[in-house]
């Protein structure tokens, strides 16, 4: 079963993250590096990516003629995707365990444990359907 683990944050969260101390950043990078390595070596990693900061995000709508109209204005409360992991595991509990590890990852003292959204990735058709 494949699950996606999503890390999200508001613009304020990203701005706060940009101000982390060098020690905190290094600890976080080291954690991510070893976490990803562990996922690969345990044979569960399907994909992982980090995304650009929200100031790079554009909201695109099609005009009447189909051409794109872009907008960069978002409400302050909007949660942006910061990065994700897709893992292939045997039970949902295994996915929750991995998410909890990311949630409790290193950071400044006042960081608190970050919520990670976990959701199943859709699969193909069921074996048999009457």
């Amino acid at each position, binding site marked *: 079963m494949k699950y996606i683990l999503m890390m999200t944050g508001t613009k304020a969260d990203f701005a706060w993250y940009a101000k982390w101390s060098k020690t905190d950043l290094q600890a976080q990078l080291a954690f991510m590096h070893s976490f990803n390595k562990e996922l*690969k070596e345990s*044979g569960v990693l399907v994909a992982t990516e980090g995304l650009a900061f929200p100031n790079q995000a554009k909201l695109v709508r099609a005009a009447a003629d189909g051409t794109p109209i872009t907008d960069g204005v978002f409400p302050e409360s909007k949660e942006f995707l910061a990065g994700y992991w897709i893992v292939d595991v045997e039970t949902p509990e295994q996915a929750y365990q991995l998410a909890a590890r990311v949630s409790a990852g290193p950071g400044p003292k006042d960081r608190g444990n970050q919520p990670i959204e976990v959701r199943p990735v*859709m*699969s*193909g*058709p*069921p074996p048999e*359907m009457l």
Partner: protein
Amino acid sequence: MTPEPDNFEHLLRELAPQVLGAVIRRFHEFSAAEDAVQEALLAAAMQWPQEGIPDNPRAWLTQVASRRMTDYLRSEIARRRRETEAALEMDQLAPPPAVHTETDQDDTLILLFMCCHPALTTSSAIALTLRAVGGLTTAEIASAFLVPEPTMAQRISRAKSSIKDSGVPFSLPTSRERAQRLGAVLHVLYLIFNEGYTSSSGPQLQRLELSHEAIRLTRAVHHLLPDDAEVAGLLALMLLTDARRAARTGPDGDLIPLTKQDRSLWNQKQISEGIALLTTALSKGSIGAYQLQAAIAAVHDEAVRAEDTDWPQILALYELLKRMSGNPMVMLNHAIATAMVHGPPAGLELLHALDTDGRLKGHHRLDAVRAHLLEMAGDHQAAITHYRIAASRTTSLPERNYLMTQAARLSDQ
């Protein structure tokens, strides 16, 4: 003679477990032997199309794999010597002549028992079975499961370590363990078969037909154990289910339920083979769950039109199956059969029992079946509600589309 690519691929896969068995017997090391055989298979896949199939392909593969093993063991010994200056383990280079009475056929079975060992997780057992017994490459297995190749390589390598750590001997299980271990093998084969359906999203062209691979491996087991009725039952179940493959999905990949399928697309050859296998198996007198499921599939396959389906017989078979396994999915199908024979209220009554049972709590199939029976009973509003609940709970994309379409169909009326 230049062989057809399909022919030598088939030959390679058939020989893979026999060659692996021979190499393990000679060198007593499963993990490295498995790698060596993979290399030999790759070498054959490169050379045979140009040079033709050797006179004795099995001996050719065994020789190439053994050469790789010798190289590996030499470098292992050199490594150990460098690291520890420890005494040379020369006996590894020249193993004593193996004293064995088992045949090549037994090797395939032994490998299956090994790869489906209870010490492994299900996904590891599946991957290792496909590689060591099925002779598939890591890339092929990875593409079938839609995971990156390095991930699959790690999964296989960890599975091999678990086997090494668990100290499973390379021999057939004792007669005391045998039934249980064979059950585990059949379960893994059954899961590979079903995986052929569930991972069929993704690029169709690159996808390996896992269902066909499962049928091929089960056929091999049946060939080795022709008197085992459950092995025959599983093979029959696979054939009778797979026979409907072409009718299961529409042109856009949309699901078509059994009652709406174009039955002229069903594979009659597979159906006849499945029914013949099942008839022989049932006559042996030891009825098991795979035989019963195959019997149910056979009743469906034998109906020329959906309305010709012999539901009383299907109901009787589910009654038997229910007594044999406490699986709530069986109870769910039993409720459908009951509705078909005694009317929707009787089926809905059985679903109440499943509500309190708790094991299917929140499972989309419970809502999907309830919606179906409510629709049969003419309560369209309630059916719409339950189709939608089921759609929100399933993690299968084609099934979600199907369930949403059912709700939309009723609410558009």
